[in-house]
């Protein structure tokens, strides 16, 4: 008894459109009609998804058809162990790496041993050290091997991924419409009919707005996007002969920051500044912010249509994935979508808040430059819940957690320490071993990492061999 929901219209384009259309095709039964209406310009801000994913993208991408063989033979993607904040606020520098849970010596989180021994965390983070050295290999399954603690995402080009998926769409049951919308008819927050320039008319049961900053459909039913701050963003692309390190490199300047991503054939640098000190003629103004309700009536906004945050971390890609997973969990069954809408919006706001907390944790600093970009960054980082996290960490290294946060304990620990936050004291359970033993423990972990990392192949060689291998497999 699935009621009348039969026709889903995905309207928009770019990464959000291709991801959403493909996800629906891969998850839903044949009984539902999925129409993908491409809209030009919907992908205009896709570069602002950033050029890196988190490890959690792996399974999601695989289901979409972006498995590693396709990523490495069809696109210029490379691996990402995280982001190297090379020069950040007040001259800070660290690798915001992806890492599996850290050891719990004697059942106590490692941070307390580090605090007690006044030891730095970075030498014990195998993925941080590999990123700094530019080495990469697939982490093994064998838990005894310290490299198994590393996790990775990808460095990629959003347009390349979207193009690749679009080529796969004709093999699915998705109906493609490539004509602009002429008219949207609405009735009490419901989109009842969509008329295209081609003359096609569709009466959708559910509309998924993937039109990025255009927000064509969600605005038509009253979804209001609240811009908190404008920034200016610009891309610089250079071809390269040799692939760079398996991480993005992020640097702060007085006017904002830049992130350099390393793909197989090019380097992409994204500059983000305040709009007044706009960086060149091709700079685009982008309104950071969120929509008040991402699901209004029978229309759901996905990706940039609902939320725009800076790609300082993989947050924008994590949020896009979360949007789609949330939608798949709640594909409505009938015309009354109130339960689905309410739950979708609840989870959306929770995801936004969690994301903003993490972004805020990297942007908030008492010693930020007194410039417009950084001053604005401080105000938008004043997110509910973050203060408690910072306070508790600085007090005694407690990682406060809220329900179902996208960033894990290691992400938070590394970010706090990277930003120069140091716990004032530690959990006294560490005193079960002597202070010397704590020091030795941290030293031993670091020395294991130091021995292992130089044995990893350079990222570029590893990827070259991987691609060669995958191509040979495909021919065989």
């Amino acid at each position, binding site marked *: 008894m*699935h009621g009348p929901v039969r026709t889903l219209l995905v309207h928009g384009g770019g990464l959000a459109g291709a991801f959403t259309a493909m996800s629906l095709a891969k998850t*839903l*039964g044949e009984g539902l009609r999925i129409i993908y209406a491409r809209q030009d310009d919907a992908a205009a801000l896709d570069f602002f998804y950033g050029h890196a994913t988190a490890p959690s993208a792996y399974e999601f991408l695989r289901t979409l058809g972006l498995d590693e063989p396709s990523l490495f033979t069809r696109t210029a993607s490379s691996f990402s162990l995280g982001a190297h904040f090379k020069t950040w606020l007040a001259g800070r520098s660290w690798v915001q790496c992806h890492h599996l849970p850290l050891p719990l010596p004697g059942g106590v989180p490692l941070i307390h041993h580090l605090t007690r021994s006044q030891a730095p965390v970075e030498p014990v983070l195998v993925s941080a050290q590999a990123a700094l050295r530019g080495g990469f290999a697939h982490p093994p399954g064998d838990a005894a091997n310290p490299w198994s603690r590393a996790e990775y995402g990808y460095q990629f080009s959003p347009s390349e991924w979207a193009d690749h998926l679009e080529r796969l769409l004709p093999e699915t049951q998705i109906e493609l419409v490539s004509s602009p919308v002429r008219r949207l008819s609405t009735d009490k927050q419901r989109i009842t009919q969509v008329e295209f320039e081609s003359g096609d008319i569709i009466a959708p049961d559910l509309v998924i707005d993937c039109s990025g900053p255009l927000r064509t459909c969600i605005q038509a039913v009253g979804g209001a996007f609240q811009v908190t701050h404008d920034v200016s963003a610009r891309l610089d692309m250079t071809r390269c002969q040799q692939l760079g390190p398996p991480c993005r490199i992020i640097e702060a300047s007085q006017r904002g920051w830049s992130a350099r991503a390393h793909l197989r054939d090019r380097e992409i640098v994204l500059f983000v500044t305040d709009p007044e000190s706009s960086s060149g003629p091709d700079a685009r103004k982008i309104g950071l912010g969120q929509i008040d309700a991402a699901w209004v009536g029978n229309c759901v906004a996905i990706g940039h249509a609902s939320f725009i945050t800076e790609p300082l971390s993989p947050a924008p890609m994590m949020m896009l994935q979360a949007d789609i997973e949330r939608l798949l*969990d709640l594909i409505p069954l009938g015309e009354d979508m109130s339960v*689905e809408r309410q739950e979708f919006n609840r989870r959306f706001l929770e995801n936004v808040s969690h994301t903003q907390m993490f972004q805020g944790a990297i942007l908030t600093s008492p010693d930020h430059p007194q410039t417009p970009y950084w001053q604005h960054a401080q105000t938008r980082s004043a997110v509910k819940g973050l203060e408690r996290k910072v306070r508790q960490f600085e007090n005694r290294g*407690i990682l406060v957690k809220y329900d*179902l946060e996208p960033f894990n304990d290691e992400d938070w620990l590394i970010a706090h320490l990277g930003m120069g936050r140091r716990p004032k004291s530690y959990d*006294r359970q560490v005193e079960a071993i002597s202070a010397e033993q704590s020091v030795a423990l941290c030293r031993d972990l670091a020395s294991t990492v130091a021995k292992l990392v130089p044995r990893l192949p350079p990222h570029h060689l590893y990827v070259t061999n991987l691609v060669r291998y995958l191509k040979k497999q495909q021919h065989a």
Partner: protein
Amino acid sequence: MDRISKICILGGGTAGWMTAAALCNKFKTLGLEIELVESDQIGTVGVGEATLPHIRFFNQVLGIDERTFMKATEATFKLGIEFCDWGKLGDHYIHPFGDYGLPMHGLDFHQLWLRLHQEKDVSRLDDYSYPILAAEEGRFQLPESDINKIGSNFGYAYQFDSSLYARFLRNYCEARAVCRTEGRVISHSLDSESGHVESIQLEDGRTIEADLFVDCSGFRGVLIEQALETGYESWDHWLPCDRAVAVPCEAKGKLVPYTRATARKAGWQWRIPLQHRTGNGHVYWSEFISDDEATHQLMSTLEGEAIAEPKQLFFKTGRRRKFWNKNVVSIGLSGGFLEPLESTSIHLIQEGITALIELFPDQDMSPLDIEEYNDRMTLNFERVRDFLLLHYVATQRDDSDMWRYFRSMALPDSLQEKISAWISRGYILKYEFGVFLPPSWVAVMLGQNLMPQAYDPRVDRFDLAELRQDLARIKSETARAVRQTPPQADFLKTYGAASMSSPLKASRPDLQMRP
């Protein structure tokens, strides 16, 4: 920074001795002095003879051998709770410790079941749950270590005599230099500046000073309330039962590995099988039933002879406004009370202890530690409260004033949303922190006849015939695994956890004099 050197635990019930045991074990190298004050004249309430699986972790950390512990406390294994007459009279279901079925296609198993159910398949969701089937048959064995096997994906807890557990832990503590002081607290002194409790005075004139006091004095809250006047947030509009009467009786019949909670007209009745006796109690709302009648209802439904006089308890559901106030941390009933419908009392003690250890203060009692502790415990209590309330409101009963009260109650938004999402599509609103995870919600909602009207449309992607086959296979493998499981009484013996004592018999003089 000034370290804490002396802790005083006030009260020697389950909460007091669990706290003492955990602290003396965790902090054994710190040279902390731990003194527990208790009085033999003051009875303990003996909360929750039934526990949740987390208790195993608590014991493991203490290095307690399971068999020794089970023998010493007359413990039985517990696979879940059977709820009788909750949805409507005559109903019964088991809320198991464990998932249903096996994870398939990345979807919740109950969604696959819902689809078959809508196709007129008659299997119960319970038929895919090893712990439910084993419990129904009175069987038990430890979970399989191979996680791919049916019979591995469940947890278990215990039913034990909590006064024996307290005694067991007391021996543990006294062997580890915890000092036990016999005495009654008659007064306390507060520091005039900070308002911290400086010392307590005992009836015999002794004074005990400490840096940190853990108040395990039960409902009275001798320090947290009588000394510090912390205040209590009452939840009796949600959970209005306010009294209980408890009595042990002779054990009769098969030793089942589950607790039973039977709904009554003005409350509910528990039955907890131990090795040597059965614990019983009737929790009720005094507005709708007299104490005498409540006692009569209990005594007339015992399965064996009572082996003690019924004991009356009074309580108010709710929590202390601050679990931790100044230098006093309240753990156990002094911190709050939630009826033992889901065996959460000992679990909440355990949560309190875990948080105290992680946030163990220095002498300055950082407000940050206190704030974090109180935030965590508040969340724990509130989430248990909502889950308990679910049992009362997911009902079709209207045969008494109490049930009509619940049927007309306006629910907290969070609970209403959960129920609506379940009914419309079998969707579970998830949270990460809090003791009851999605399978528990599924068990209670389905068990109390909240049948979803539809299932997740992603299930339609799968071929119905294949789905039928897959589920049939899981069902038959589950049944087979249960057939291979021994009866609990046999398992207790072969495992070496059967107690040496003989079953308790009614020994009241009037009974003995019978011809």
